[in-house]
């Protein structure tokens, strides 16, 4: 690990908070050891890694619930101790350490929930990915606009627009591809409003975003109850894209079915996330975009058109969010429902910050929330006695801890939210 720190690269607070990681880890270790291990039940848990009909079926793994809790608890304690040692030597614990820690803690949680039952790992993973797609794509839209300096609170509205248009246009034309296109164009138009207001009219970007959300929610709610609810057969019955199995790759145990047996919307997301990373960090276009977001005056001085760059990145970001919205309807359940995005745009906003404006980290953070949604559904099935309200709370609490403890004073693009007035 590099120990060099350029002055000003990290704020004072970030150096001072480095002890938080092991402290938070110690807290989680205690929970796993005490609640899942010592107080846990001895009922067995069956871990099913593959579906029975998979080509390469792995054997099930059967173990007592509290044994897993104890074993993982001890491992977590070791990781925590290691992190404390690192911190005492004034080193930052590496990110992979936190990731391994989190993964083990999740395994312990699943084993505790499913005591006397089965953990269908493939089912959980593939559903988590599908549920994460709208959040991830919304977050990509957020990254694209914030990287050029426009705060995008309107992700929620863009997702809702996409979901609505995909379902309605898809139904009316009887062609899902037209629906997908309509979703992307519609959300892009919404983004153009955001872009125009914030770039040309210099209206406060947060305010425009909030207002657009309210407006889209109002319009879709109205059209839903006035039109779709009465004429659902014609206007709100699009069906879904077929599931495409990619040959060979989908045969890989565990990951194959989760990654390579999906709908086109999911595959597009798989392409968009690395593509965005490539464009942002490996191309001239991306460099210019980031320059505009960090220091618009400097970018302007070297001849980059700040307003135009911002406008197009925000607009294309809207297309991506529209695709995310389409993933909610024609990429998942089909018909549109009232307030279908249900706050996922706000989660995407959190994911942008949690992922530090980086496509891959944001994608991983989105997966956390996708996992959280399926966890709630699954926990209800395997152990109805568990207070599901608390299980539902887990991802939000984890995000809060991550933001407070690990991410801390994240640095947004320097000109994020600042209008640029060409002098």
């Amino acid at each position: 690990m590099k120990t060099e720190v350029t002055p000003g690269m990290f704020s004072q607070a970030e150096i001072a908070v480095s002890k938080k990681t092991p402290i938070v880890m110690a807290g989680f270790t205690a929970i796993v050891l005490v609640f899942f291990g010592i107080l846990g039940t001895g009922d067995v848990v069956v871990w099913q890694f593959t579906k029975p009909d998979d080509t390469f079926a792995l054997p099930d793994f059967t173990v007592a619930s509290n044994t897993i809790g104890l074993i993982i608890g001890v491992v977590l304690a070791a990781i925590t101790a290691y992190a404390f040692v690192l911190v005492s030597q004034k080193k930052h614990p590496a990110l992979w350490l936190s990731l391994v820690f989190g993964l083990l803690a999740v395994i312990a949680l699943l084993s505790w929930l499913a005591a006397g039952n089965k953990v269908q790992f493939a089912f959980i993973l593939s559903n988590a990915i599908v549920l994460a797609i709208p959040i991830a794509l919304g977050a990509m839209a957020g990254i694209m606009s914030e990287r050029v300096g426009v705060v995008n609170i309107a992700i929620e509205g863009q997702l809702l627009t996409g979901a609505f248009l995909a379902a309605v246009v898809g139904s009316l034309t009887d062609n899902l591809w037209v629906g997908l296109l309509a979703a992307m164009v519609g959300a892009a138009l919404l983004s153009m409003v955001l872009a125009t207001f914030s770039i040309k009219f210099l209206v406060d970007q947060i305010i425009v975003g909030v207002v657009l959300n309210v407006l889209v929610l109002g319009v879709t709610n109205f059209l839903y109850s006035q039109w779709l609810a009465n004429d659902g057969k014609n206007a709100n019955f699009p069906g879904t894209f077929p599931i495409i199995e990619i040959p060979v790759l989908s045969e890989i145990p565990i990951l194959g079915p989760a990654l390579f047996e999906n709908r086109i919307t999911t595959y597009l997301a798989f392409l968009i996330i690395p593509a965005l990373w490539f464009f942002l960090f490996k191309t001239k276009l991306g460099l210019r975009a980031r320059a505009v977001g960090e220091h618009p005056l400097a970018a302007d001085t070297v001849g980059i058109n700040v307003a135009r760059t911002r406008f197009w990145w925000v607009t294309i970001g809207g297309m991506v969010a529209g695709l995310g919205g389409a993933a909610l309807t024609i990429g998942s359940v089909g018909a549109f429902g009232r307030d279908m995005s249900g706050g996922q745009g706000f989660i995407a906003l959190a994911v942008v910050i949690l992922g530090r404006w980086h496509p891959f980290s944001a994608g991983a953070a989105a997966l956390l929330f996708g996992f959280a949604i399926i966890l709630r559904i699954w926990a209800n099935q395997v152990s109805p006695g568990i207070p599901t309200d608390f299980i539902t709370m887990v991802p939000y609490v984890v995000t809060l801890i991550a933001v407070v403890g690990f991410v801390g004073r994240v640095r947004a693009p320097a000109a994020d939210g600042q209008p640029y007035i060409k002098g």
Partner: protein
Amino acid sequence: MSTETENRFQTALKEIFSTSATRTVLSVFLGFVVGAIFMVFSNEDVLKAAQYFTARPMDTIAASWSAIADGYSALFRGAIYNYERADDPVAAFRPITETLRFAAPLIAAGLGIALGFRVGLFNIGGNGQLMFGVLWATWISTRVELPFGIHLVVAILMAILGAALLGALVGFLKARTGAHEVIVTIMLNYIAANLLTYFFREESLLRETGGGGTPKSDAPAITAQLPKLLGEDYTLHLGFALAIIAVVVYWWLMERSTIGYRFRMVGHNPHAARTAGINVERTYMYAMAASAAFVGIAAANQALGATSGLSPSVDAGIGFDGITVALLGGSTAPGVLMAGLLFGAFKAGSAPMQVMGLSPEVLGIVQGSIVLFIAAPPLVRAIFRLPKPQKTTVLKDLVKRSSKGEEK
């Protein structure tokens, strides 16, 4: 000489038309126009008439007009005065009291969000703070027995305190770790909502005595209910009076008090404020707590204004509506009051519209459009060809001239 007076008159006129008050009125008007467009295009009679538009265009126009008139007259009957029940004064005047009742929590929450805006904080967590306040107030109102009078006061204070604590937590986390308030408040919204549901679900905590599986609380004890203001005929309760007091307190806090001066200073320019010796982090913390405290008044309204048990949807989205109220009201005390009344009228007017077969959600569109036009002054100016606001006002001009004259 005469030309100069004329010029001055023109300047004054220009200023009136470029002030925010005019713009606000025009924005509200435009919002209703947008709503009318949606009413027309979703009306079956209009769509039928439009099929033979070229043959008899007047049919379409007449149908459109009646669609708009029906819709907005239903809103008027539901929100202001029910002229169809003019024979019975109690029923005829009930709508306006309903508007006030719905407006109360919107005003209080709007003030909270507005306070955040003035300090440069975006409190998107009104809903969570409201739910946390409801949790505390409901505990007092259903699980604690206190004498008449004291019970209500304690319950109200607990609602405010509960919300303020959650707000202070946000401010504390922002000050200590730099965690962004937007993300923290969004997360706390979900956490508070789930916590409230859990409390309403658990028998040992707040679940309705003898209640079933659905999360629901008991009705607040009679001693802890907000008393009716206008007798038993109307449901309007003390919550509206609390909201009015909150408006006055907000005005005093922001315009007259030292802490309010600090709030505004940090809001204008945190760097300058820091240079001037203000502890910006601590100010953020106080501001978040104060912002949430106003939301707590809305929480008291929701928890103690009810006469039956509460469900987890007790928030009614007021925390989010508060954002639009604050924006429409320009974050000033009188502005928020007016905006809250307008949106309260929308809520009160929903029922008669529903009865007419028009989805009241059209009011959501009106609400959104109004705030959109408010948020985009250049757009409204462009539509009505209003002049740009002057940088120097006539008053300043006069002062300058008179002082120059004195110098001479």
